[in-house]
């Protein structure tokens, strides 16, 4: 599968990259804007991502903005809910309001940091990605 990860923190990025690479090709951006760009490019090339992992706190655009942008673009292009890209937010912000906001904006899952790899695996299975 094709994965995009937006994460500005080096350590987290490295960790996630290592982890996700076992499941597929993993593109990495370090800020929100680049993530939207990457998402667009993949759409244009007709090779959309299967999974996007978004950090919440990022430079230029935060995870919420990116998520909203992605969902907006998908709606605009008439991509059905079923076919749209799966988005997992990753953040140490784990208060309910943070998670709720993300859910409302339409992410598939929200994973607190540090990431529970075992559960992440289960999650990917539930999302039928692996």
């Amino acid at each position, binding site marked *: 599968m094709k994965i995009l990860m937006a994460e500005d923190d080096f350590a987290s990025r490295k960790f996630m990259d290592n982890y996700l690479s076992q499941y597929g090709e993993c593109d990495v951006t370090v800020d929100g804007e680049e993530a939207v760009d990457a998402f667009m490019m993949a759409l244009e090339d007709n090779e959309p991502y299967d999974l996007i992992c978004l950090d919440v*706190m990022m430079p230029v655009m935060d995870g919420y903005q990116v998520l909203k942008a992605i969902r907006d673009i998908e709606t605009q292009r008439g991509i059905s809910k079923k076919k749209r890209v799966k988005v997992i937010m990753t953040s140490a912000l784990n208060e309910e309001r943070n998670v709720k*906001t993300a859910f409302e904006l339409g992410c598939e899952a929200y994973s607190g940091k540090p990431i529970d790899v075992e559960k992440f695996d289960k999650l990917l299975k539930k999302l039928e990605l692996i």
Partner: protein
Amino acid sequence: MAEELNNDGMLDMFLYESGQLLEKLEGIILEKQDADCFDESDINEIFRIMHTIKGSSGIMMFENITKVTHRLEDVFFYLRESQPDNVPHLELVDKVLDVSDFVNGEMEKIKAGEKTDGDEGPLLKELDDFLAKLKGEIKDQGIPLPKQKKNDEPSQFYIAPVASENSRFFQIVIHYRNDTMMSNLRAYAATFALKEVAEDMLYTPEDIMTNESSADVILAEGFYIILQTKSSAEEVHELVDSTEAENIEITELSAEEYGQKLVEHGRVDAPPAASAKASEPAKEEKKAPAPVVPGDYVVKSKETGKGKTLAKNQPKKQSIISVNVEKMDALMDLIGEIVIAEAVVLQNPDLKVPGLELPNFQKAGAQLSKITTELQEIIMSLRMMPLTNAFQKMKRIVFDVSRKLGKDIEVQVVGENTEVDKNIIEHITDPLMHLVRNSVDHGIEENVEERTSRGKPAKGRITLEAKNEGGKVYISVKDDGKGLSKEKLYEKAYSVGLIGERPITDFTDKEIYSFITLPGFSTKEQVTEYSGRGVGMDVVVKNIQSIGGRLDIESTEGAGSEMTLVIPLTLAIINGIVVQIGSSSFVLETASVKTFMRITSDSIITEPDGEEYIVLRDECYPFVRLNEKYNLKGAGTNVEDGIIVVLEHESRQICILIDKLVQEQEIVVKPIPSYIKRVKGVSGCTQLGDGSIALILDIASLVDNKERRI
């Protein structure tokens, strides 16, 4: 703030909500355990509770909880849709409680940071079997089976951050040798090496790559790293080691300390705190806490990595915080000290100069008193909790024990909203549990015939009652069972040699009942699993006494017993009146003082046995001379010289003679040192403004004592 960093908001919310729902569930079950079946609203409610827990545990990915609650939800779905008759109610109740226990158990594990590894298999099978049976019966009744419910798996998930069980936190301080060239590059090398294993890392100084002068700072102060990793201290040490390093200190941190450090280092990766608020425009601050909107968490600088600051800081509202009980206790103690200090200042002997008037001082003093009073009230109210939970627990115990003993018992609860100091709740839960078990086990008759022959309903009844009266809380466990047999108690006490050779007529009923609280006493020949041997009742009494309470036992043979825990509402501060008898000071609880008066000696009548009474306005009060009772020196004996105080406890009165009324004030209750055995008529002591000690009179036991002799 540090705690918040490590508390997972989502997880807490899940635990809190599910806990509430489970409590509610148990409430419904216990209320309806004896009914023939659940009514429609119960079924809907239980269905809804299971549905909610299933849903939220699904989102949280606690799969075994999801499965179990899902299955029970299915059961109630059938019940709701088909409304069959002949549902084996007790079996159903059992199943629901099993599920509730299972979920509770798993939630405890989550709280402890453990894996939810409870095996849901057996429970699932039981539920499946039960459901199959239900369906069978439903079919037998000719009711069409409801359609298979659509399975609404959650479509969104939340993964709680990994518990710190395998992540470790370190603080690493590296000091380089003074002649190290470009120590900032050495430091960078160390951080680079650590990135291999780091889950998270922060270091100071931060600008090691961009600012050459950071090298001097590193040489002077050392290079600080805080690190989250799965590696051991040794592995970390190996990674950062270099020939230039003179000294490497690696300290393991707890998760809390780590969180603290993160905050100290200005890392706002955590919930945006109130820092940097000052820079916000004023109008921004006045805004109500806004919900999260996209864009709130943009990190300002394009610089990747460390030292993030948010473009917009969230004004943060925290309406509820949890506080360590120890801190509350410390605060409580301090406030107690303030109250004493206040008394020391305001009643200072230095002020007692005849003719000295200090209006401004008095005014300031009054203000101080007002504030300390408010302070006390607030801390008290913080510590008050209703007994609801404790009672709920007791209901559950009655249910469990009665089921296992094959007794049919209903529980009635009165006054469960009575509020009590948290400390006290902790102290009474075990004693109360013991009393309840005793009532179920020893109180209620084993044979239904035994009950019916006495004209009692077949079903046993246990009443839990709490009420608040005169600064005390009364919590009683009442059963309508056998009651205590005085003869049996006496024989038993006699045979174990607890009372010597004295005949039964020597003892009052109350004393005979109190035999059961003696160490090593039990009338039940057979030791049962639930109320054990005679150990326990003496422990109950000891526990209750340790918080200044007592246990009252009332019983009528054949009709039932009532055990009442009488405990102070709060342990700490009471309103009291300081009086003097001879050279001793005593404190009377204000609530129990009815009147003060002066009388003439002809109001006193003396019985032939020497008992004295005071007759006032057609009322006759027993009169106790404390100076004689307690052998106090220097006290006046002529009632016309002193003041008579009428004390009241539970509508029973008693009079005492005092020499002098000192004043009314707030009294910080201190226990009498445990070395001194409990003194009858004294419930505690306190330190007065001048440093002397006054004993607090326990009106209840004075009244009791007197009454018994009448």
